[in-house]
């Protein structure tokens, strides 16, 4: 795949929402932070020291073992424009930090974008595996193999007591951050979410929801991840996260069933209103789009709206964001222009899926 295609193709593997529990778990992400001994961390490194790290990491990625499995392609951050960087951020392939602040940063991507390896982000190496649905173990298996290959060829900064040494003390030890992106509209509607979020904070996990006004999360999407990286083994971290996510998934299912049984008309009304707005609106702000898309997605998952693929929603979550809209338009857009384009894009995609699939 060419660099251009990474920017223009809206599809990453993680959006293909076909994994286990994909009615609730949008994606699973695993990140492994590693550093090289005898190289200053990226925050202090000079440009030439940073380039040296990119060179070393790239060399390993071109080795036979790695090439056979992953076909990684290198994208140097100083060779992509700000809009393209933004698209990579919106696809969750690089962090805002790599896009905006790193000098001599790079990312290695495999063709289906399930593996992205950031170089010179906050740490020298950040291996990221991003899969659709609830697949923590698969993500770990892919990630740890890549880690092993790097380790065979590079001198990792590792210490017997502290484990893998990272730039930030919050990542030291295992260096792993595992997370699942959860769509929890029913727990939000039944107002159980705050109680659950409080409980989660007490077991070494963190939830990030980006909140709009009031208490509703944008698009009802929440990212659940481990907070502790030192003093717990990788399998403890993963099974802890797995167990808690499992509980939340079950609670969301219970809440969905409850809403269907007790407030069916109200629920259907809300879902179809959102669907109607998205089908016909001429301008939609990103915040409203996220909320309406969440309603429609719930409608699809509950079988209230038949005939629309949930994958369309995953795609729209990404393609209606500012970077993608502007990339698609081939120019910078004002917020008003973006709202208009967003509305049109959503209309067209939903209309597409309405037609019976002839083949």
């Amino acid at each position, binding site marked *: 795949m060419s660099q251009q295609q990474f920017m223009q193709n809206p599809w990453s593997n993680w959006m293909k929402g076909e994994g286990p529990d994909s009615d609730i778990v949008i994606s699973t992400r695993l990140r492994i932070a590693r550093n090289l001994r005898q190289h*200053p961390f990226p925050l202090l490194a000079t440009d030439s020291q940073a380039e040296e790290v990119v060179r070393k990491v790239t060399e390993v990625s071109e080795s036979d073992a790695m090439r056979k499995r992953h076909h990684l392609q290198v994208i140097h951050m100083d060779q992509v424009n700000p809009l393209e960087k933004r698209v990579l951020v919106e696809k969750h392939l690089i962090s805002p930090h790599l896009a905006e602040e790193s000098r001599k940063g790079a990312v290695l991507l495999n063709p289906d974008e399930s593996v992205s390896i950031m170089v010179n982000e906050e740490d020298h190496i950040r291996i990221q595996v991003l899969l659709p649905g609830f697949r923590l173990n698969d993500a770990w298996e892919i990630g740890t193999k890549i880690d092993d290959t790097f380790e*065979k060829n590079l001198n990792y900064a590792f210490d017997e007591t502290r484990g893998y040494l990272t730039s*930030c003390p919050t990542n030291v030890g295992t260096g792993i951050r595992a997370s699942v992106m959860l769509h929890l509209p029913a727990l939000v509607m039944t107002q159980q979410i705050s109680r659950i979020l*409080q409980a989660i904070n007490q077991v070494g996990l963190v939830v990030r929801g980006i909140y709009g*006004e009031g208490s509703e999360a944008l698009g009802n999407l929440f990212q659940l991840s481990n907070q502790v990286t*030192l003093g717990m083994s990788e399998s403890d971290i993963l099974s802890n996260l797995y167990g808690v996510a499992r509980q939340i998934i079950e609670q969301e299912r219970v809440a969905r069933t409850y809403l269907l049984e007790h407030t069916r008309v109200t629920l259907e009304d809300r879902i179809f209103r959102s669907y109607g707005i998205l089908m016909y609106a001429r301008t939609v702000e990103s915040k409203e789009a996220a909320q309406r898309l969440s309603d429609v997605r719930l409608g699809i998952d509950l079988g209230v709206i038949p005939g629309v693929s949930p994958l369309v929603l995953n795609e729209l979550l990404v393609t209606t964001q500012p970077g993608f809209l502007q990339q698609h338009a081939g120019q910078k857009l004002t917020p008003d222009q973006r709202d208009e384009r967003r509305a049109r894009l959503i209309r067209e995609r939903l209309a597409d899926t309405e037609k019976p699939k002839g083949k």
Partner: protein
Amino acid sequence: MNCEECGKRPATLHLTKIVNGEKTEYHICEHCAQEKGDVFTGFHNFSINNLLSGLLKFDPMQKGVKESTANKTLRCETCGLTYAQFSKSGRFGCSDCYTFLGDRLDPLFRRIHGNTQHIGKVPERTGGQLKIRKELEQLKQALQTHVASEEFEKAAEMRDRIRALEQKMAQS
């Protein structure tokens, strides 16, 4: 209300971020939101550094003056990072910083992780000896359990594997 970033335009985006029960509110304009990255992916850069330096500065158990002057002269010989710089930025400069700052990091790690000792994965090559030692510990435990439950065949098997590993260690 005006935007907290630029102070010029009216704030149209009101975000509340909750991390660990800590609530932070943001009021910014569309323009600055765009600069910062979109609402789905942005906004994770700001808080953790400030939080960390807060953790480092406040230690009610610390005896104060003496300890902190000792900290002042601490410096990583490899990258030159001082303790003061570290406590301000919450970031290490290189992997040797961990050695130079040493035990002083324990209280910080305890607060962040509730722990100070790594117990996870060990790299094959750079951590080879450690890996063998950990395996030895496990084998010795297994040996004891087998002896205790009178499974002597299995115990003998463990004993052989322990011997082989010990030889391997002596050689390397």
